[in-house]
């Protein structure tokens, strides 16, 4: 008998703008010791589906409209609130996405850890503490006695997620729901956490529901996979079967959207003429935030070496991928080159001119040629300007259009980036993430630039949208002969788009080289570790 058997689950949200069928007729089951992966893009209902089982959705507006969820023969959807309180944390535990916000900052790690024991098992504090230290040890936290008394902010993201796992395991539940447990983490940390989860599951024979948007992660951890879209199940099957032979079009599209394979080498790169040369660039931030009290603020006055002695060159019509984990300084590097972040030392030569000391006035004609695409399409557009105003502004400021021709030019730009002309008078908040990123790209290419810094332009997007935007970027690079610095944490994306790759770690260059050569034979230890951490398809034959 299945541990959990969900049949025809329906969860609807009754909002002012009508009913949203977040989960519509979903059925699945999980056995002890097995992992079910639920895959879907944002808005697919994958999280709501699982949260509704343990009564964690906001009600109202959410409402469970039908179905059953038999857990050990007991229907979770109809049991009393009191009974649900007994089940949660005791029989069913949840691990959430963002370990930074999911731990209470006002309580010690230990206190939060032993709560399931205190309130479900009636175990006294000293005994609970011993158990907690054991389990902290088990999830790989060094010095658990000390960490027991730490507050969450004293731990790194990876450690916090370990604590969350310990918290889920401590009452020895039969089922664990993991909601994107590694999405907020760097790729090397993700690899460690996934390994830990797998080991613990095998040891304890618990059932796991693993919710994620990342197909590669699912292929590594799950026995069975459920693909969801718009609240409905699109396809289900064993992991091996589903990835080797996807039947539904949507699943095929999802798998195809994962950036894979190699970009063919662009042959026409004339090596002799670098467009951009960066020599020994440093950006050190001085932290002189006036703290709570001035004497300690003086102590805080220390340098953060965001970019530390970085040299690179980019040839004309080349895409240089810059790869690094969070805190590697990759964004600061891109901004420092464009003069958006301060430069402490070093030299920047653009098209033969040393622009390091250029004033804002001297930079202005160059600004037309150097543009940037930002990560967050929600923050990078002025919410109070229409698409027309956003796209017309650079054209008018640089004198590339006059009032008569500007509309035609804006419409041409919209065609270029694949936006319907009818949207010209709309505001950013009326668009989806992918469409907004198209607008942002349109703004960046409006002035017909030569060089573009793209800072994680696709990492805020769903995987199918991501594929579209990547293809758009490649198309525009070819059409307008662009040179690009493409910054990303996602190695798959960089491999797909970049001619050459530079690996950044703690502000320093670890390694750089032709993309495929670097992939085939990484030299630096850090690069090896990074490449080894990427989750791969078990059966996808990459």
């Amino acid at each position: 008998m299945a541990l959990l058997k969900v049949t025809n689950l329906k969860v609807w949200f009754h909002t002012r703008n009508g009913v949203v069928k977040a989960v519509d007729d979903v059925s699945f089951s999980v056995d002890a010791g097995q992992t079910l992966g639920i895959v879907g893009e944002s808005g697919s209902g994958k999280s709501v589906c699982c949260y509704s089982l343990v009564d964690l959705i906001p009600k109202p507006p959410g409402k469970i409209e039908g179905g059953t969820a038999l857990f050990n023969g007991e229907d979770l959807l109809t049991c009393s609130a009191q009974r649900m309180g007994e089940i949660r944390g005791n029989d069913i535990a949840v691990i959430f996405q963002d370990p930074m916000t999911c731990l209470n900052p006002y309580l010690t790690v230990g206190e939060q850890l032993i709560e399931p024991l205190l309130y479900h098992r009636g175990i006294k504090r000293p005994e609970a503490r011993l158990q907690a230290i054991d389990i902290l040890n088990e999830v790989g936290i060094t010095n658990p006695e000390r960490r027991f008394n730490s507050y969450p902010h004293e731990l790194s993201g990876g450690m916090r997620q370990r604590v969350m796992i310990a918290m889920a395991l401590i009452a020895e539940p039969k089922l664990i729901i993991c909601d994107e447990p590694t999405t907020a983490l760097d790729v090397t940390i993700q690899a460690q956490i996934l390994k830990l989860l797998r080991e613990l599951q095998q040891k304890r024979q618990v059932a796991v529901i693993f919710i994620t948007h990342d197909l590669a992660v699912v292929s590594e951890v799950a026995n069975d996979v459920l693909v969801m879209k718009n609240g409905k199940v699109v396809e289900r099957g064993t992991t091996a079967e589903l990835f080797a032979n996807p039947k539904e079009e949507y699943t095929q599209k999802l798998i195809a959207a994962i950036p894979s394979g190699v970009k063919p080498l662009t042959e026409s790169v004339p090596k002799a003429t670098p467009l951009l040369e960066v020599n020994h660039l440093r950006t050190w931030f001085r932290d002189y935030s006036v703290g709570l009290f001035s004497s300690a603020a003086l102590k805080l006055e220390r340098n953060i070496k965001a970019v530390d002695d970085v040299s690179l060159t980019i040839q004309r019509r080349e895409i240089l991928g810059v790869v690094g984990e969070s805190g590697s300084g990759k964004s600061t590097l891109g901004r420092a080159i464009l003069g958006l972040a301060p430069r402490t030392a070093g030299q920047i030569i653009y098209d033969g001119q040393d622009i390091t000391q250029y004033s804002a006035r001297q930079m202005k004609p160059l600004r037309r040629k150097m543009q940037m695409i930002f990560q967050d399409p929600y923050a990078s557009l002025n919410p109070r300007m229409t698409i027309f105003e956003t796209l017309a502004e650079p054209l008018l400021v640089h004198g590339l259009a006059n009032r008569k021709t500007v509309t035609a030019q804006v419409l041409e730009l919209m065609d270029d980036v694949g936006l319907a002309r009818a949207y010209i008078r709309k505001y950013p908040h009326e668009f989806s993430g992918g469409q907004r990123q198209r607008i942002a790209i349109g703004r960046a290419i409006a002035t017909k630039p030569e060089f573009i810094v793209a800072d994680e332009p696709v990492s805020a997007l769903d995987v199918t949208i991501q594929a579209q935007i990547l293809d758009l970027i490649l198309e525009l690079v070819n059409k307008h002969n662009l040179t690009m610095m493409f910054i990303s944490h996602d190695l798959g994306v960089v491999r797909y788009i970049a001619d050459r790759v530079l690996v950044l770690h703690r502000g320093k260059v670890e390694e750089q080289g032709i993309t495929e050569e670097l992939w085939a034979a990484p030299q630096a230890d850090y690069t090896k570790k990074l490449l080894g951490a990427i989750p791969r398809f078990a059966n996808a034959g990459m």
Partner: protein
Amino acid sequence: MLKFFFTRLLQAIPVLLVVITVTFFLVRLAPGGPFDAEKAVPPEVLKALEANYRLDLPVWQQYTSYVGDLVTGDFGPSFRYPGRSVNELIMAGLPASAELGLYALLVALVIGTLAGIIASLRPNTAQDYIPMSTAMIGICMPSFLLGPLLVLVFGIWLDWLPISGWGDMPGDKILPSITMGAGYAAYIARLSRGGMLEVLSQDYIRTARAKGLPERVIIFKHALRGGLIPVIAFLGPAFAGLLSGSFVVETIFQIPGLGRFFVQAAFNRDYTMIMGTTVFFAFLIVLFNLLSDVIAVWINPRLRHQAQGGH
């Protein structure tokens, strides 16, 4: 923590110095001498008076000696009550004022936080609307209006409670305390509701729910500390507000407290008394700001960590 406390204490010194200096010179700038209003005073008496109050010295020396006296805790003699020092007057008014302030603060904190928490548990229902509309009335009903109305209704028409005095009759402390605390109770109710709503929407509350903790544990152990931070930050300003509220409330209810003395001194142009009470009030306000800062840091582990000299 101790170090944090002392650095903050040190920072209070320039603030106090600014208060003393501004007060001193503001009063000196006042047109006319302090004894102008008196009937013709013989020159020799005037001279003796001026010497007594050090008015014969150059302003600069007056200032330094005044600051010097303040450091030793001496506020000087009163202009209007010959023979009595400002210290005596402050000490005479302080007990009643302190008691009134304490009761008002209790009224504000207890009623305010309770109403705020209750409202935040079921937002946008009657349980939210009723206390919050009442709070809005409290905010729009200043103490100088609420006080007389309470007197009118409970003191005169219903004749339930005495309408003036302090400690002379049983129950004469009720109306002043409510008058002074009500507005702050209303404000604190809004702050704590907002704080609680903010915290209750945090991910870590969802984590606590997912652990199957009882609702009371979630509210009192997990949500309350974060939710009350805005209230704690408000305590300093609230105290300053209570002080100025005491001017009105003590006048309405004829309570022999500092606030009434201050208002009287202002009307009597009793300059040393004005200066003395101003500096004393400033000292109290700075002290309470400090206290509310220290509590805010102490309650938040992250700030506490920084305050202990961590990174």
